[in-house]
């Protein structure tokens, strides 16, 4: 992959957008604005995939995350009463615990990022032209077990959602 000045520039712009919007997602007082910043974050991540020549992943990122996951969150927002997060508990006792978890996650992913031989990977395997076909091949051969497990998990979630949503009664007095 050739590294032109423009792609480097694009990377930094996108990274800044992702980080900025991610911070805004958690710090926004208005939950609706949070969701919209989340959507921006997802779309910017699709941009990152585009820089990596992974067009399919980029499109999936937009379709699934911005188009579907955000919508699901929107549903959640619309179904709850409170939209204003003035009494939001942005900083409280759990901050330290959360900080620990984040630090641990950072450490683990940093470790793997550091130990992966990026140079070899980038040099030896060029991005294939037909990435979609190869993803399909891999999902149904090498990674068939995780693929099926994920499918099962989704099915369980689906059934659970149906059970929960069934026979919802209105909270009426008379």
């Amino acid at each position, binding site marked *: 992959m050739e590294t032109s000045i423009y792609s480097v520039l694009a990377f930094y712009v996108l990274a800044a957008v992702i980080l900025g919007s991610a911070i805004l997602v958690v710090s926004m007082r208005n939950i*609706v604005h949070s969701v919209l910043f989340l959507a921006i974050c997802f779309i910017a991540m699709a941009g990152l995939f585009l820089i990596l020549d992974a067009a*399919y992943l980029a499109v999936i990122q*937009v*379709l699934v995350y911005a*188009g579907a996951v955000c919508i699901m969150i*929107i549903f959640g927002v*619309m179904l709850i009463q409170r939209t204003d997060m003035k009494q939001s508990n942005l900083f409280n006792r759990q901050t330290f615990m959360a900080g620990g978890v984040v630090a641990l996650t950072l450490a683990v992913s940093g470790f793997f990022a550091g130990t992966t031989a990026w140079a070899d990977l980038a040099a030896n395997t060029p991005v294939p032209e037909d990435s979609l076909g190869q993803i399909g091949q891999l999902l149904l051969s090498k990674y068939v077990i995780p693929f099926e497990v994920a499918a099962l998990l989704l099915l369980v979630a689906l059934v659970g959602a149906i059970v929960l949503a069934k026979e919802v009664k209105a909270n009426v007095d008379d």
Partner: protein
Amino acid sequence: MLENLFTNIAGLLRNLLDSAGVPPLWNDVTLLVVKLVAILVFILINALWLVLMERKVAGYMQARIGPNRVGPWGLLQTTCDIGKLISKEIPIPKSADKILFLLAPALVFVPPLMIFAAIPFGKDMVALDLNIGLFYVFALASLTTIIFWMGGWGSNNKYSLLGSMRVVAQMVSYELPMILSVLGVIMLVGSMNLTEIIAAQQNMWFIVTQPIAFLIFFIAAVAECNRTPFDLVEGESEIINGPYTEYGGMGFAMFFLAEYASIMIISAMATTIFLGGWLAPFGLTFIPSWLWFFLKMYVLIFVVMWFRWTFPRIRVDQLMGFGWKILVPLSLANVFVTGIGMYIYRAIGW
């Protein structure tokens, strides 16, 4: 001569830039910008014209004449309407979320513009020839949901909220059958590149080999752009005007024109995927390819309008039931049958 009219213009522009000593990258960028601007102008002019066409079609279906005062045959009616709407104040409700309220109509034209960039209007007439063109279109189309929701939520009105709830539910539900219905075509072509999909229809349009997929796609697409009989998002006799209830002036006009832009998109997509895109049928190649594309597109647009002025509105639970209980299983079955058909086809070795 006519056939290559637009490609020649593009080539001319490129040569001009080359001779002026512009570096190739900037040359590409300039050309892309020119193409996008051309598409934007195309969309806007078409949307304006479609509003008039809709009113004329409605008029003739309802035993009346329709607009006929401004310009010959009422041609300048929508232009005047837009002039009026632009000059109007945009009233902002007191309790509205101002940023979202104003942002939504501004953003609503972005996805259509980006989608049109990937649609081949004619032979060698595509601004962005993407490998995964089909998916790209769907991904961007799914973003419109958020914009409608922004407008509905930002208005802070119960009718708008109900409308945006319906928008979200309807668009999410009908995206699924829409994507599933084109899977059969993707399987047959083996590519998601729109140019290749058109090329694969050289001998036979996919509407012949995939008739059920076409029906599902078209129904779901009509639902995606919130047109009758699936116009419950607006449903003026129930929820006034859904997400656009609080909009006036140009804010409303933007949503209004965006509806026509999305009709163009679904018609263009259906043309590309099922009606052979810009390919000329029966060897009638003396008509330029882009004209063929528009002809097919306009036939479909007319069908959509015909729907609107004939059908009543479906109810929200019937809409969901129809989407999930009929269209989704049907499109899955279509994929399954297509797979078996391809297998048999190969086994025979025809």
